[in-house]
């Protein structure tokens, strides 16, 4: 078996491996610590008053069952996996009895939308500008754009989000700084609602984009300046092919290929950035949900979000991996 089917199989295998290891790490983190989440939850709820011991014992039992902590370690492990396979993370403690999966289901589309839009925007724009900068080396506007992009790139997502919050929230309040849409608005697909969505999404997207642009810009610029020295570019120039066509078909197309791999690799960290950005802007995605879950001591929700994050990111990486051969026909499974 050669070519694409083999490649497909390898990628699927990698996907399965990532999920396996990731979820195992989640299991180890939660089960291998001396802290007992059951006792923690009980301590949290019995904080303000006393409850009779039998009630506490009942609570302990039901919590144990809820958290899948009955039986020995192996039983817990099996229960853990079985529940994940069924998509059942149990009910959320802070929003009892709403199941965790429902809560995640409500928040996930927001995060996905934010991620898809900002990642695509950043990747496309960053590569475009970087590619142009690599080809037209003397262009001052591009060089300036480069310096700007690189200035933001090393700064962590939190600080950029925070700075944007300060600028547009306090100094120059022209954009909303919290929520995903204007409160109490009808959630239909009217133009009004969509506009409100866009206005609220602008700052989170901008925040993610500012940090990400620099990376793609620098990468593409250096890739392009290498590709430009390749024989096939020189040959096309000798043949008098128009410059714009060379830039598009010969230079960019080839330089873009490693950037696709780079996209797959950086999805994890972009996701991390999205979580914290959501929190800063109160954007109703999975990130805000996660933070509030931690503050509320909602074990199932935190675990559920972690698991879903791992699966979602790996899936996105798988999609990119599968699309990769479309751009690079030389790919053969290794």
């Amino acid at each position, binding site marked *: 078996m050669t070519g694409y089917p083999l490649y497909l199989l390898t990628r699927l295998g*990698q996907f399965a491996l990532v999920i396996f290891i990731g979820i195992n790490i989640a299991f180890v983190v939660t089960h291998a610590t001396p802290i007992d989440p059951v006792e923690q939850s009980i301590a949290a709820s019995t904080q303000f008053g006393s409850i009779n011991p039998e009630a506490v014992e009942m609570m302990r039992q039901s919590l144990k069952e809820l958290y899948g902590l009955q039986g020995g370690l192996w039983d817990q492990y099996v229960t853990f996996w079985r529940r994940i396979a069924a998509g059942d993370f149990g009910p959320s403690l802070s929003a009892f009895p709403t199941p965790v999966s429902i809560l995640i289901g409500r928040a996930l589309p927001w995060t996905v939308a934010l991620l898809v839009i900002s990642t695509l925007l950043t990747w496309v724009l960053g590569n475009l500008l970087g590619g142009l900068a690599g080809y037209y080396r003397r262009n001052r506007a591009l060089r300036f754009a480069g310096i700007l992009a690189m200035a933001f790139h090393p700064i962590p997502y939190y600080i950029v989000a*925070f700075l944007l919050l300060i600028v547009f929230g306090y100094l120059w309040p022209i954009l909303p700084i919290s929520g995903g849409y204007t409160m109490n608005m009808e959630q239909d697909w009217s133009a009004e609602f969509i506009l409100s969505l866009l206005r609220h999404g602008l700052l989170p997207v901008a925040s993610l984009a500012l940090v990400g642009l620099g990376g793609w810009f620098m990468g593409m610029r250096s890739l392009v300046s290498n590709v430009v020295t390749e024989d096939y570019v020189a040959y096309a120039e000798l043949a008098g092919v128009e410059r714009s066509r060379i830039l598009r078909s010969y230079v960019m197309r080839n330089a873009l290929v490693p950037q696709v791999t780079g996209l797959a690799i950086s999805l994890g960290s972009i996701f991390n950035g999205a979580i914290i950005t959501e929190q800063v802007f109160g954007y109703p995605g999975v990130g805000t949900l996660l933070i509030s879950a931690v503050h509320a001591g909602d074990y199932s929700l935190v675990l559920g979000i972690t698991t879903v994050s791992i699966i979602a990111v790996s899936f996105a990486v798988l999609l990119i991996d599968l699309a990769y051969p479309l751009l690079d026909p030389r790919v053969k499974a290794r």
Partner: protein
Amino acid sequence: MRSFLALLKSNRQFASGVVLLALVAGFACLSFFSPYPPNDSFVVPPDLPPSPEYWFGTTSRGQELFWLLTFAIRNTLVFGIVVAVLSRLLALLIGLVAGYAGGWVDRLLMSINDTFIVIPLFPILVLFYFVLKDHMSWGLLALMMAFLGWSYDARLIRSVALSLRHREFTETGIFSGMSTRQILVEEHLPYVLPIVFSTTMNNINWSIGLEVTLSVLGFTDINTPTIGVMIYWANQHTALVAGIWWWIFFPVLLVVMTFIGLFLLAVSMNEYIDPRSRLGRSER
């Protein structure tokens, strides 16, 4: 040492990076001269703006921002360096073994490596904090981050090792009877060191960034002053709304200087390694 000075003179990026970091590090060293222990509060009047008496102002908890900041940046830097060193060990080990051994060892290690690159770390760290709550310590956090953060750099080191293994001078060395240790130290190390250096800079940036993010959320030990913890407390005391902007401004300024400084170092080191860009510079 000589190449360090040459680089300093010729490369503006490198020089700027060094200057920025020197400033930050110098500031951190001032912490040893602080008249106040870092955790004492209400030792000075609170909420005072920057003035000749209190250079960076004071916080709502009655601490002098200037001296508090020296501790904060010192702790943050130390944390970042510790994580970077620990993860260097893992990255070097895995990267070099994979690159030199090749074959199925390489494939296996890279599969595992790619797994760690893809897995989103932040939720796991949050989960980690969640189960540990008050038992979270800096050491534990550093260990966890080192355990999760080696993968990107391991890949870079591996590709250097791969190309070195196949280079002609390696084979010449083997044929001329150099011992493995000799080859590794004399021929390969000069190629590996620059990339280790630049990945270390990037890794420090990464770990400090993560520390700031986690601390701001209150997910670390908030009793030790670090940059992130300072911002956390500033937020707790609604510093922005109350107009105590200096409590946020100076920590952010310092940490941004650190990030940009480290970044410049890493970038200039990368350019230094890539011979094509070096040639480009000599032609100008």
